């Protein structure tokens, strides 16, 4: 088992470097927001590294980038790199947030107000 043996310090920058292969940017792919929802397309490919596999597993149902970051205790930028890999592999799909230009549209605001009323 690759898990056995060494302990990982989640705050260790080396870990972040290794799991992202030293990448801090995701290139020109879809821009992933904090609240972009990620949903798995299938069971994780057995060849995936543990972090990738964990994301595919937990995104059985939609989860935001922020939630993935919270559950994995990984920085948002690291999660973004990992999710971009998974998008390339077609392991997950991304549901971008509702676009808000300068101001949100009326239908969106009405929906949110209606939802808040039910709180």
């Amino acid at each position, binding site marked *: 088992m690759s898990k056995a043996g060494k302990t990982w310090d989640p705050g260790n920058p080396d870990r972040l470097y290794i799991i992202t292969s030293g990448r801090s940017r995701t290139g020109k792919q879809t821009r992933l927001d904090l609240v972009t929802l990620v949903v798995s397309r299938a069971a994780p490919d057995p060849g995936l590294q543990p972090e990738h596999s964990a994301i595919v597993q937990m995104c059985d149902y939609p989860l*935001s980038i922020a939630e993935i970051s919270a559950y994995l205790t990984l920085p948002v930028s690291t999660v973004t790199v990992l999710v971009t890999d998974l998008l390339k592999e077609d392991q997950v799909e991304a549901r971008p947030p509702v676009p808000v230009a300068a*101001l949100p549209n009326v239908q969106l605001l009405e929906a949110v107000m209606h939802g808040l009323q039910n709180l």
Partner: protein
Amino acid sequence: MDYKTSDPYAGPRKEDILPSSTAAAVKVVIVGGFGVGKTTLVGTVSEIRPLTTEETMTQAGVGVDDLAGIEHKIETTVAMDFGRISINEQLVLYLFGTPGQERFWFLWDGLFEGALGAVVLLDTRRLEVSYDVIGLLEERGVPFVVAVNTFPGSPVHPMTELRSAMDLPESVPMFTCDARDRASCRDTLMALMRYLYHLTNEISEPQ
């Protein structure tokens, strides 16, 4: 095994799962000074136990000029609490609370970008902090409302006094809220939505 639990990457609890039909999310940012009740507010209205996300941010060293050609950068990890409210089967609202040094949060790439708007929780003990925050929101064109969290025993300032101390235009809604009270927090978010609604209509229907 080195792990305390059998599954080191625990995902959401069953009750925290979003329906598969959830198509998109929107976000609102709660800003304000340290200890002013942002995390409380997020926790009060969130349907999930608030979670913590983090980001590594690189900031140019203070007082270093580019002419020297030396890359002097400071890397810091900052953490932020957030919560979630399901609006309907398709739409979910995320609330991000920004603790700590306020200026810092504007460096978090994509935090304010695409946000519906912001709630400024006013710190009546340190108005200058909120003053800074409001300035930055205005600069970035992020629409906001101002809420004064009522702590038991906190000094009571008349709203008009606070408004003029903050140099806040009449058009920006300002009201009191109790961050521990769900209905009050909901009303705070409602006030932001109504304000956004008003701004949107104002632009789409010119006089």
